Every structure is written in structure tokens, then in C-alpha cells.
């Protein structure tokens, strides 16, 4: 993975020293809250309902075992012994004291991590496919490009005060595991007819109050033009993006109001002007960054592992876990292991310090020290020999991390909601816990098959409810929590915003309503092999509406 050079170390170190001084001045009274608030936000420090929250960037979701151990240590030393992995491949600590945050940032800098640009109207942590570098279906590893974008966008003076926050995601290939069509810029690695690598560029996707699937801006962008073209998009947005209304300030609104052709013409004009300038990326620079992300030396192995087959024959739980949590690797004999952070009845995305340490140990022992964080709030060991799967599984069982539910109904995305978040209208976590309990039996989940539920505690949609096959949005109705159901959303290459089925449900009703939706699906699917989303696309919302609200 990427290794900081002297410049990076000095840059992050200087930033920590600066913030340490700012915190000291705040605590001594030299800075008022009005003066301090923008400074703390620039360093990822929010004030939530019960405490400060520190949001730490995990660039493109890649973590080393050493970094994971540091996060575990910080959780144990400065927080309550746990952390929360988010949909933006960040980690949030929910209980740090302001006085301790400079020390936390110093500790993070030791392992080349920081919280810069995890808040504010700037370019946020660039996210990527969590199987990057390992996926059998990728054109190229998206992370070198994400790293190039990270370096370019870090404290970029022109883009530090954009109309609104700006999010970029990159997918390594056609199958989109990074939700690129719901980002301000989505990049998909492609090959042109000549076999050259480049990007298909999407723009203006987003969730929140006004969800849009992205517009397709450009079919092929040569890799050498990545920065010049991105800078051109940002310039057009910076100029024309609305600053008069916070709710209309994202680039999606500019796209909606100005139209694709106008924006494209502006972007292309700026691009032509700057493409041969300093932002042009020579192949040597790209290769230098790519070298940091080289695949570990994976010794050749037979595609089918005898050890795995033997273990599966003896242990049905292991076999079930392999079926759901293990993904094909580009190198035969290897696999990517997804570690579910969705224990039945637990809190999505939470991991204790002990669990973080356990994952780090397994990564060192069996996975070349590499860990990934997915936007679905799970962890991944990207390179594991199939021969070692049983040992990894046993380690996960011991750490209470072996839930076999990836892609199934209990593998939900859940935002913190009203239990933590100052912006929330309703709680998300307890609703998710009850749904998880209701559907947690393995046979039941397996029978239902692939189904993504996503829950947000307010319209900001951090829980991606718009793109859930079943989405749940918490709203406030005269002081009462109410939950609105949407159906048919999807975050992948068949991107769609879910449709609201009807009036919301109370806390007491919502789990029953989800059960009704699932039962309806099971009744009308063409067979067990037809997934929920396919049934929905085939038949539409009508039977679900009738089941929920009666025929009209």
C-alpha cells in the first residue's frame, strides 16, 4: 500500500501541531466556539448528541494490520473500546474528549493516518471498490488513481471552499461495488478499442434530500488526463454551483438545472485549455504510485483447495460461511474474505478494539497484512489462500466475527441515527437490530437470498436508504418516529433510486411491514433463484403496496 514520503509526514505532522495549538487556545478561552468550530470540522471533529465524534479517513478503504491495531489502541485508550466503520470507508469514534484529540491525531500520524477533509465543503475521502487489486473481474486496481486524486485534492487551495462537499468514488471494472453512480464524480476503469486503460466518467449522482443517479459525462478519459479532467469538473462546479441555498449546492443540482450538455461543454472547454499543462500525468508518475499497490507474491496454487473441501465436509457452518462471505480472487487458489460487522441483533459497522486486533492478527497470519473497509460497513481480508480459509474462519469464530450473512437480508447498511447523530429525526440502529433478529435464522436468510436493506435516520441518507432494495427512512412526525419504506433502489451498475411505497410505519409497525414485504416477495417470485430485486423489477410495486396497505 501507499507509504508516506518525507513530504507527507511533514504535511500531516504540521497539521497535527497546528490543531494541537488550536485546541489549546480553545480550551484556554482564546478562541470562541464560533472561531473554533470550522477549525475542528476541518480536522474531522464533530459535536454530536452525547460527545464529540472523530471521523478518521481510511483512504479508498485500505488499511494495514498495523493501522488497524492503532485504531484498536485508540479505541481502548481514548474511547469506549470500540469504533464504527461508515459507508464512506471512514472510521468514527463516538466518545473522544476534545482535550485528547490532538494526542489521538499524533498517534494516527505515526501510522500514516489522519482526519483531514473528513468534513467541510471540500473533496472528501476518495472511496473505491473494497475488492480492489484482488477482484477477478476488475480491469485495473482503482487505488493508485484514488491515491493520485487524494494527493492532488489534499488542501487544494482552489477547492477548499466549494459550494458543498464533494465525493469521488472509483470502480475497478464494470461491476460496480463502489456505488459510483451515487457520487459527485464516479469513475469506472475501462479499456478502449486500442486496449488502453482509462475511465468512464459519471457526474452528479447523489442521495440526500434530492436523489439522482449520475449522468454519464464521458465514455473514455485517458488515464494521463485524470487530474486535468477532474480539475476541470471541479472548476465548473466551483464557478456555477449554487452557494445561495445549502440544499441546492451539490453538483447534482447544477446538473439538474443546467443540463448535461451545458456542463459537458464547459468542462471540455476548460479541459482543452489545461490538459497539456502541469496536471498531465506522465506514465512514470502513474507507475510510481502503482508500485505501492502491487499484489503480494501469491505462490501458485491449485484452484480447488483440498483442505477447504475437507473442512467444509466436516463443518456445515464453515461451508455456509464460505458460500456467503468468500469471493473469488484473480489468482487461482486464493479468495477474498468478507468479515461481517453485522452480527445478528448487533450494531452494523461497530467493531470492538479486541475485534480490530483479532482482524489485524488474522491479516498478518493469513492475509499479507492487508485489510479493507467496504462501504457496506464490513471488513475484508483481500488475499487469503483457500487452504487457509478454515483457520481464518476459526479465528473469526473466536472473535465473534463469523456471521455468515454477506449480501443477505441481515447485512444491512445502518447509519448512527438518533442514538448518536445531532441531525437525526429517528433512530436507525434499534430498528435494524429488530429486523436482524426477525430474519436472523440462517435457513430463513438463505431462503430469502440476496436482499439489501439500508436505513437512514434522516433525509441526509448516510444509510443509503434511497438505494436499498428495501430502504427505510426515519422521519419525525410530531415528535413520533415514523419509518418510510422505499423499494427497488440499487447502488450498482443498474443504479436506481427506490420508490416510496406509501405512508410511513411506527416503530411498533416497521418490522412487521418489512416482514410483509419479504413474505410478498416469497409468494410471487418465479422461484427461489429469483432475487428480491429481480422480482421487484419484473412485477413492480403493486403487490407490495397491496400487501402493506390493502387493495384500493
Amino acid at each position, binding site marked *: 500500500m501507499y507509504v508516506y514520503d518525507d513530504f507527507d509526514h511533514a504535511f500531516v505532522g504540521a497539521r497535527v501541531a497546528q490543531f494541537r495549538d488550536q485546541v489549546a487556545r480553545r480550551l484556554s478561552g482564546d478562541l470562541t466556539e464560533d472561531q473554533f468550530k470550522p477549525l475542528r470540522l476541518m480536522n474531522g471533529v464533530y459535536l454530536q448528541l*452525547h460527545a464529540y465524534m472523530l471521523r478518521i479517513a481510511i483512504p479508498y478503504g485500505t488499511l494495514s494490520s498495523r493501522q488497524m491495531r492503532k485504531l484498536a489502541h485508540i479505541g481502548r485508550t481514548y474511547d469506549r473500546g470500540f469504533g464504527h466503520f461508515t459507508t464512506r470507508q471512514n472510521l468514527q469514534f463516538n466518545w473522544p474528549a*476534545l482535550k485528547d484529540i490532538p494526542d489521538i491525531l499524533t498517534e494516527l500520524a505515526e501510522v500514516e493516518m489522519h482526519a483531514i477533509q473528513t468534513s467541510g465543503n471540500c473533496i472528501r475521502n476518495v472511496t473505491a471498490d473494497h475488492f480492489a487489486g484482488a477482484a477477478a473481474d476488475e480491469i485495473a486496481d482503482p487505488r493508485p488513481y484514488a491515491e493520485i486524486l487524494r494527493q492532488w485534492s489534499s488542501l487544494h487551495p482552489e477547492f477548499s471552499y466549494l459550494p458543498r462537499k464533494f465525493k469521488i468514488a472509483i470502480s475497478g471494472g464494470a461491476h460496480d461495488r463502489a456505488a459510483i453512480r451515487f457520487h459527485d464524480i464516479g469513475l469506472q476503469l475501462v479499456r478502449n478499442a486500442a486496449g488502453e486503460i482509462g475511465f468512464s466518467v459519471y457526474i452528479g449522482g447523489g442521495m440526500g434530500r434530492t436523489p439522482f443517479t449520475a449522468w454519464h459525462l464521458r465514455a473514455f478519459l485517458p488515464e494521463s488526463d485524470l487530474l486535468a479532467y477532474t480539475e476541470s469538473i471541479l472548476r465548473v462546479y466551483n464557478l456555477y454551483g449554487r452557494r445561495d441555498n445549502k440544499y441546492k449546492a451539490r453538483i447534482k443540482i447544477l446538473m439538474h438545472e443546467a443540463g448535461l450538455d451545458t456542463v459537458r461543454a464547459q468542462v471540455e472547454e476548460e479541459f482543452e485549455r489545461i490538459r497539456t499543462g502541469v496536471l498531465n500525468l506522465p506514465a512514470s508518475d502513474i507507475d510510481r504510485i502503482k508500485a505501492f499497490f502491487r499484489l503480494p507474491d501469491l505462490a501458485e496454487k491449485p484452484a480447488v483447495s483440498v483442505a477447504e473441501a475437507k473442512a467444509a465436509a466436516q463443518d456445515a457452518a464453515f461451508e455456509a460461511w464460505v458460500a456467503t462471505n468468500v469471493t473469488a480472487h484473480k489468482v487461482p487458489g486464493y479468495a477474498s474474505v468478507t468479515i461481517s460487522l453485522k452480527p445478528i441483533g448487533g450494531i452494523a459497522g461497530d467493531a470492538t478494539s479486541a475485534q480490530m486486533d483479532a482482524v489485524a492478527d488474522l491479516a498478518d497470519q493469513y492475509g499479507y497484512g492487508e485489510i479493507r473497509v467496504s462501504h457496506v460497513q464490513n471488513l475484508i481480508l483481500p488475499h487469503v489462500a483457500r487452504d487457509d480459509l478454515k483457520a481464518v474462519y476459526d479465528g473469526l469464530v473466536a472473535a465473534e466475527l463469523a456471521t455468515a450473512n454477506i449480501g443477505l437480508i441481515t447485512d444491512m447498511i445502518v447509519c448512527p441515527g438518533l442514538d448518536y447523530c445531532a441531525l437525526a429525526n429517528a433512530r436507525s440502529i434499534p430498528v435494524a437490530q429488530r429486523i436482524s433478529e426477525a430474519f436472523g435464522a440462517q435457513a430463513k436468510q438463505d431462503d430469502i437470498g440476496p436482499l439489501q436493506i439500508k436505513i437512514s435516520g434522516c433525509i441526509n441518507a448516510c444509510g443509503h436508504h434511497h438505494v436499498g432494495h428495501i430502504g427505510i427512512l426515519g422521519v419525525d412526525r410530531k415528535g413520533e418516529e415514523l419509518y418510510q419504506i422505499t423499494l427497488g433502489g440499487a447502488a450498482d451498475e443498474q443504479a436506481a433510486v427506490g420508490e416510496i411505497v406509501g405512508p410511513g410505519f411506527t416503530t411498533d409497525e416497521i418490522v412487521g411491514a418489512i416482514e410483509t414485504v419479504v413474505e410478498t416477495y416469497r409468494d410471487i417470485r418465479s422461484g427461489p433463484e429469483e432475487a428480491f430485486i429481480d422480482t421487484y423489477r419484473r412485477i413492480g410495486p403493486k403487490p407490495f403496496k397491496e400487501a402493506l396497505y390493502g387493495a384500493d
Partner: protein
Amino acid sequence: MARPPKSSQIITANRLIDGRVVFLTQDLSWSSDLGNAQVFPDPASAEGGIKSAQTSAANGEIVDPYAISVSLTDGRAAPTLLRERIRADGPTIEAGPKAA
């Protein structure tokens, strides 16, 4: 529509140093225990509390003070809004590792 009856109020804020939820007490200090909160009979009288809270904010003791409505049962105050009940009592879910 009839105006809702004027409800009792307490003053809440977050402590600067660690962000914890606190309430303004009788002796104009801050307590993390809702039971120690000074109860003002109505929004108008809570104004005085807000003033003293703003002094605490200026002194760097607390951040963002504001008044919230409470209902009184046997002299004990309970915030009217769910958000404020959660702030007072903590998350409604386990807010720490499962295994201690």
C-alpha cells in the same frame, strides 16, 4: 388551533472539554445528571437561565446552551422530545463493546 400550554424548561449544553451532555443547576453550575437540573416554570423565566448559560459558554465551560421543554412527574423532569431524552439518558442501545 389552541396554543400548547407553556411548559417547564431546563437549560442544557455540551461540556467543552469532552462534549458530554450537561444541565444547568440551581447554583448555576453544570451537572451531567438531569435530576440536578434547575426547572424554570416557563420559557420566559428560562431566559434568565440562558443568560447565565451564555456566561458559562463565554468562559469556555460549555458549548451551545439552549432551553428544552420538560414535563414534571413527582417533581422529576423528563424532556418532552425524544432527542432530548436520548441526550439525557444516553444511546438507547448498547454504547460500548458487547463483551466487557
